[in-house]
């Protein structure tokens, strides 16, 4: 089996172990815990008041723009890592190349900043 496939398999195995162990604890808790549901107990908690309205409503998600910026910069970050690994071998050339690449993204960031995309409204 190829090396990286083994790595992926291991991550899967560990996720499986984690799920099983948590499920075991849940099961144990189920066995020894009491369960006396009542209407008041199951109502939505709103600091003791009777809940007003639904919480699954339309409302403005304020950091939508942040999420967009995140996607762009996250990809930039992914490109930076392989570059960082080979940096010592490639020297000044790599630094200039990356400066251009990051520079272009910084233009975008400065643009977003000045246009108020980073402002919490």
């Amino acid at each position, binding site marked *: 089996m190829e090396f990286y496939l083994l790595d992926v398999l291991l991550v899967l195995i560990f996720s499986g172990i984690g799920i099983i162990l948590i499920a075991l604890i849940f099961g144990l808790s189920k066995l020894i815990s009491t369960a006396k549901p009542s209407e008041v107990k199951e109502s939505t908690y709103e600091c003791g008041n009777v809940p007003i309205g639904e919480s699954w409503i339309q409302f403005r998600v304020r950091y939508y723009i942040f999420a967009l910026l995140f996607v762009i910069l996250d990809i930039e970050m992914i490109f930076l890592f392989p570059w960082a690994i080979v940096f010592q071998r490639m020297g000044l050339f790599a630094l200039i190349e990356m400066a251009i690449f990051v520079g*272009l993204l910084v*233009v975008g960031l*400065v*643009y977003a900043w*000045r*246009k108020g995309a980073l402002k919490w409204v």
Partner: protein
Amino acid sequence: MGYLSFLPEMVILAFACIILILDLFSSKKNYFFSLALIALVLALVTIFLPFSSNSNSLITQMFFRDSMAKFFRVTFIVAASLIILISNDWARKSNFRSEYYSFILFATLGIMLMASAGELVSMYISLELTSLSFYALVAFSKGDLKSSEAGLKYLILGVISSDVLLFGLALIYGLTGATRFSEIASILPRTFSEPAFLLSLIFLVAGFGFKIALVPFHMWVPDAYEGAPTPVAAFMSVGSKAAAFAITIRIFLGALAVAQNFWSILLPLLAVLSMTLGNLVALVQTNIKRMLAYSSIAQAGYVLMGIAALSAFGISGTLYYLLAYTFTNICAFAAVTVFASQTGSEEIKDFAGLSQRSPTLALALTISLLSLAGMPLFAGFVAKFYIFASVALQKLYWLVAVALINTAISLYYYLMVVKQIYIVPPVSKEPILISLPSRVALQLTVFGILLLGIYPGPFIKTIGAITKNLFIT
């Protein structure tokens, strides 16, 4: 250093960023127009500087630096300059002037890279750069519902078509394990597998068909052109279409030439469909931008005939047609832009009596429409003649016949507009003023149309030299 041969692209990229940044820190907004023009002029100058491109660096392997690439790059820079000239009236009213010009520059950069792409990845990325710029540009009139609708339609359909194209490219890569066109051409015969190839062919044709706006992948065109700001519609009809044609030529005649008998039947078919449907639907349009949109679909059909001829002569015809079409279509759209910005209307019936309100504008629009129809004296005639001749040489007489009938049909709706301009009496006598940049653009394009129509010799010679080496095999 192979990098220096990318100087024009770098200039455009740098200016696009500079315009964006300057906007953030200066209160004056009126010099972006000049900056964008300076960028394009600088780029045009640097294209002709003698930088050697014979380097084996990675980037020069990703892009062709041949004479065909040069032809397209020059054409695109000229087209972009004309677009910027006619944008001034419109952009002056916009709140996002710097963004507009930098998007135009990014789109120019995209189509320039597209036309010179030498392998699948760089091709796809430059295609995306172009498409993304155009998505934003189409939806640029923020308050305008039509513009937003057009932008959204174009975005959704465009993204789907890009995906379809990507599937096709992925299959080609899967078949050959290569991304460079020349490598694909040499590996494909050895690893050929019919089902996979046919599948990828379908995807490729659909993807490119969308970008070129061929029937049956044309649905987005009328809406997008109608909703987009007029200069943007002009740029789309000229720039992204020509760039997509450039890629089509490179991929089909370069990378997939060995599988010719699979796709050679498709091209005449698509050509016939496009020109027939485009012309027939254009007949009933009342909005001039929609009419021009359908006319551009039909024109794409003619251009495709040149590729369908599968000869160097045919490709020369294609290139010549694209050059002629660039000037002609920008001229037509420029006239519409000026008219619409003054009167606020894009209906054909409102063009009534234009000759009395502005003789210059009327003359320019007439010349461009006659050239689109393929009348002698104008660029369109030489271009059509060139292409029809190349198709006839390949003994595809039925295709020529269909194209001739189509030309006759198209003459009708172009002349209907001319009739409105010269014969129908005007609704209002108010003269239409043409601003200096638009005037320059109109003069340049009319000059181009006449030059290409009356004295095509040098251009044909240059283009012949470009395409001579395309069919060595």
